[in-house]
């Protein structure tokens, strides 16, 4: 934005508030077309640069003379008062370009008071913003924590549900298999019987063959002596030898002992 303002110095209209009012000098200046804040910045710069006295000897105010319009330069009035004359607060009216402008300078005390009030308000707003921001952050953090916990709980519930589903399926399978009558036909049961036979075998027994048929055990033994030293199962020898010198012994399942009694 090029700064080519139309500058001229004009004396203020005669003071209207009182004969002792300070003299107000007015300059009109023009800011090139642009955004309102850019025009205001250019005008402020021009007001400072083109001050009739050093800046530490005057105070000034800027007034826009016309409302902002796009593509149009902005016209401003810069009103200057000697600092030593504007010791207290005062108000005056000046005529600029056919318009009456009210110029109101505050006293130093009032400016300080306003600055303090503005500072306190800014602090309060910052504190409230900090608290609200912290509260929002905490709320979002809490939301994240709850979501995480909920996800863990859901996963645990899913695992439990899968376990229950598997259990339900096993229960159903067990019913099906029981219907097939295979509860006693597991290899674990067969191995248990085989282990019993191995441990119960008499030291001098000579077993040629071991038969496990649907839970019943039969052994082919050389000689007529009982093949098992343990008597916790019923062992019955066939009446006739299977082969010459070889006898077949039948052993009842373990639970049959309760019903059959000792051999």
């Amino acid at each position, binding site marked *: 934005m090029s700064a080519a303002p139309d500058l001229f110095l004009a004396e203020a209209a005669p003071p209207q508030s009182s004969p002792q009012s300070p003299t107000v000098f007015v300059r009109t200046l023009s800011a090139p077309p642009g955004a309102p804040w850019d025009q205001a910045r250019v005008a402020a710069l021009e007001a400072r640069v083109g001050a009739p006295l050093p800046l530490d000897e005057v105070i000034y105010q800027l007034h826009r003379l016309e409302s902002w319009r796009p593509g149009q330069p902005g016209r401003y009035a810069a009103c200057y008062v000697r600092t030593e004359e504007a010791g207290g607060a005062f108000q005056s009216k000046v005529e600029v370009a056919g318009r009456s402008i009210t110029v109101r300078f505050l006293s130093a005390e009032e400016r300080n008071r306003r600055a303090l009030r503005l500072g306190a308000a800014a602090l309060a707003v910052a504190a409230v913003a900090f608290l609200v921001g912290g509260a929002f952050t905490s709320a979002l953090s809490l939301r994240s924590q709850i979501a995480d916990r909920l996800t863990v709980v859901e996963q645990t*519930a899913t695992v439990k549900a899968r376990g229950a589903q598997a259990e339900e399926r096993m229960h159903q399978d067990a019913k099906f298999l029981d*219907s097939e009558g295979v509860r006693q036909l597991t290899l674990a049961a067969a191995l248990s019987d085989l282990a019993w036979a191995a441990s119960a075998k008499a030291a001098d027994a000579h077993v040629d063959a071991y038969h496990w*048929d649907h839970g019943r055990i039969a052994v082919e033994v050389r000689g007529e002596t009982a093949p098992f030293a343990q008597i916790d199962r019923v062992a019955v020898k066939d009446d006739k030898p299977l082969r010459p010198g070889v006898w077949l012994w039948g052993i009842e399942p373990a639970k049959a002992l309760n019903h059959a009694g000792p051999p």
Partner: protein
Amino acid sequence: MMRKRRAQTDVVVPALTVAGLSAAVLYLLLSLISRPPDLSGRLAQVERNTGEAEQVLARSSTDSPYLAHAICEDPSAAPIALRQRLQSAAASTGLTFSNFSTTPGAPDEAIGGLEPLSLSFEASGRYDAVVSLLGALAKAEPQIFADKIDLKSQTSTVALTFSGRIFCSTTARL
């Protein structure tokens, strides 16, 4: 003095009201933000699922002789898988494995469409290797059920003749 105090009251009361309302709105907003979407619905679903699962688990028994996946799911693939598993188990125990055969049975629709698959094989080798083979098969899934096990003593080895069954499902299951 009275006018000034009245003016202060005129400002303080609306300011406090606005502050209170703002705090209440902020509280509600924060409460809404801190809750994940559909929290109540998800919790209710979790409670429902957990309740159902606990009911099922409470009536489950622990004395079942059956393995977790006792029934096979694919009857067509079962014979090949079974042969591979038996050959592998026999080889790992140093047994000679032979005469493997399977015979599919008719599905029994009355008990959930279970199809029995009869199997038989022979193996020979050391006695403890035969017992190890049977122990490995006892843990195999689908579960193998024994109909007949014959062990014949040879000079220094044992000949095993095994016949048994597995069961496969012909219908979609859980």
